[in-house]
């Protein structure tokens, strides 16, 4: 019994540390605070991440049913999408794809074009999947 509690706690510790390490490497929180110039609220943002992770865990383990109106899913979807978009952008940036590609093909001044290609590609791919692809 004690062993189960201990190993559960250890597993949670590892996963939590992993999540925070991942977010730190990608630097999404610093990026957001820098954009909005709200460094002094950084503590709150950290807690938002922690509470979000705990809420998500409870939600996926307990299957609660809240009986809320469906339209609340719209802002949730948007927020979730923005977060995934930030993740995707940060990942692209860490991998250093765009600078090298732009340099190789010699269109450094049109890098925004490449960026828009990727952004629109992501939006299109996602819409295509949910509206059409999942039925096939």
């Amino acid at each position, binding site marked *: 019994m004690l062993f189960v509690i201990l190993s559960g706690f250890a597993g949670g510790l590892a996963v939590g540390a992993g999540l925070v390490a991942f977010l730190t490497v990608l630097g999404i929180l610093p990026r957001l605070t820098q954009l909005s110039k709200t460094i002094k609220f950084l503590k709150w943002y950290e807690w938002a991440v922690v509470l979000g992770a705990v809420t998500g865990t409870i939600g*996926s383990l307990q299957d609660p049913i809240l009986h809320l109106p*469906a339209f609340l899913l719209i802002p949730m979807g948007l927020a979730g999408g*923005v977060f995934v978009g930030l993740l995707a*952008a940060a990942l692209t940036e860490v991998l250093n794809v*765009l600078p090298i590609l732009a340099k190789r093909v010699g269109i450094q001044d049109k890098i925004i074009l490449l960026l828009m290609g990727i952004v629109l590609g992501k939006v299109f791919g996602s819409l295509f999947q949910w*509206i059409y692809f999942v039925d096939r």
Partner: protein
Amino acid sequence: MEKTIYIRMRTRLHVFPNQSVYLKDIAQIISSEHIFQELSMLPVYKVSPKDNNLIVLDIMKVIGFITERYPAIEIQTMGAPQTIIEVVYKRNKLSPVFVVLIWFLLFLGAALTIMNFHEDVSMQEVQQRLYTIMTGKYEAKPLLFQIPYSFGIGLGMILFFNHLFRKRINEEPSPLEVEMFNYQQALDQYVAVNENKESIKQLDDH
């Protein structure tokens, strides 16, 4: 006597083929007025057709040229120890077809990767469950969540790169620009060491 001059090498210089490079092109100079004119027109390099498109001019060479002409002068140097001269050949314009091709490559690549990611993490199932948690009903295609989500992805990426279709959200450079700068810096550093014949001395040099 004002016999000290200060020079600071510029980091990069663009020149045309067959152009002569003068001291004022590759360095900032501070000196007494009566030699300034002469000093700034001191030829230090002549670009020839057999040069590669990158030439590294070491500060030691420049000091050599100056002391040859003005032996009594004392030279104080600051900043980078070399200038990278980039010869700008007339580049044939990248054809629009090529640009469109690359654009579609990125577009389809991005679309495929996001779809693979969603499949990988069973996004559909998670979203169906989220729908059930929120409303208590089952929905095979929770589009109410998924469509804002999809646009959110695009918004998040634009937010990260701080570009709203050519329009800035604020003045800071975007991570992409910083990344471009870092990449260029690393290239310059490599070129400065490896293209510079003076900085590496082979043992069996004959």
